[in-house]
């Protein structure tokens, strides 16, 4: 009788330990996935910022060019007064 009790107790102990280990593995995997997503999103954000910076520089240059062109178009030199 005692032997049976010991065996059952050991089985339960091993089963409980296995469950705890499995749950721990799942938590670790979920944490790793979240961190990977953070890293990927951060990289995407940095890339977008770099692209936006270049686009903003291009837009600024174009607007300066437009302002210069409109200044030339508004020039009345040589026209009837």
């Amino acid at each position, binding site marked *: 009788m005692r032997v049976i009790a010991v065996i059952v107790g050991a089985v339960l102990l091993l089963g409980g330990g296995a469950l705890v280990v499995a749950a721990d593995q799942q938590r670790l995997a979920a944490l790793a996935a979240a961190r990977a997503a953070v890293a990927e999103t951060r990289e995407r954000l940095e890339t977008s910022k770099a692209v936006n910076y270049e686009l903003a520089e291009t837009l600024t240059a174009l607007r300066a060019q*437009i302002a210069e062109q409109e200044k030339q178009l508004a020039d009345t030199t040589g026209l009837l007064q």
Partner: protein
Amino acid sequence: MLAVVVSVAVIVVAGAIERADGLDTERAEAIAELRTLAVSARDAAQRTDYLEGAIGIAEDDTADRAAVLAVRPAFVAEIAALSEALGRADGRVDTTADRASALSAQQAVLAELSDPAVVTNATATVHALTAKIDGDVAAWQTAQQSRRGSVPAGPAWASSGPDGYARVRAALDRVGGGGIGLYESESCAGGTAPACANSDGYIKYRADIANWSVDRLNWAMAHELAHIYQFRVWGALHSSSAYQTMFGGDPEFLANCMAVVRGFRGSVGCSVDQQAWASGIWVGAVR
């Protein structure tokens, strides 16, 4: 033995719970950071879209303005040619309407930012105006030369010079005397009258009136032109009782009233009836 086992079990379970709690906390923090980063990344992507769209529009605007600027020099050159033509026409032909048309075209060009066709059309318009003005001046010069060959002989001007003559000529043209001969002469009433009309159908003027103001010159030419029209109905005019009654048989008074009818008001007032009667002389009617 049992107490030891229980104690070990409690310690192991507490450790497991603490580790699980720590992992959950770290994951929650990572997810919160991920959310913040995702919002920022979405904003950045939207800004990228906006910037790309704005650049596309700006590139189109730049190309449009460059196209308009490319055809602007041709327009300015045409305006310069027109200005020279206006200078040549000054005092010879009335260019008021042509100048207004050119200014209108110029205004359209100044307002245009995107369509080069507007500028090329305006350039063509100004070119046509220049050609028209030059044509008008040539016609005027031809008319002057043909007039100079008729009565009286000799040049059309003396001391007033070509420019002074041109002013008086322009005034006579302006009041409707485009086909009437005009000559400088000191012989009007022995030189006391500034201008006079000859029954042969031409007008003489004294040199100093070339310096009169445009309004006064217009009035003087309208008055002399009225005499030319009086000569055309001279017989009927002098046998008209209304002419005697309303104007006292005075051709000068009638000429003043005829000028008023044409919009050139001198110093003499005319009643409505006098103006109505005088207007008939302009069309050859003596009532």
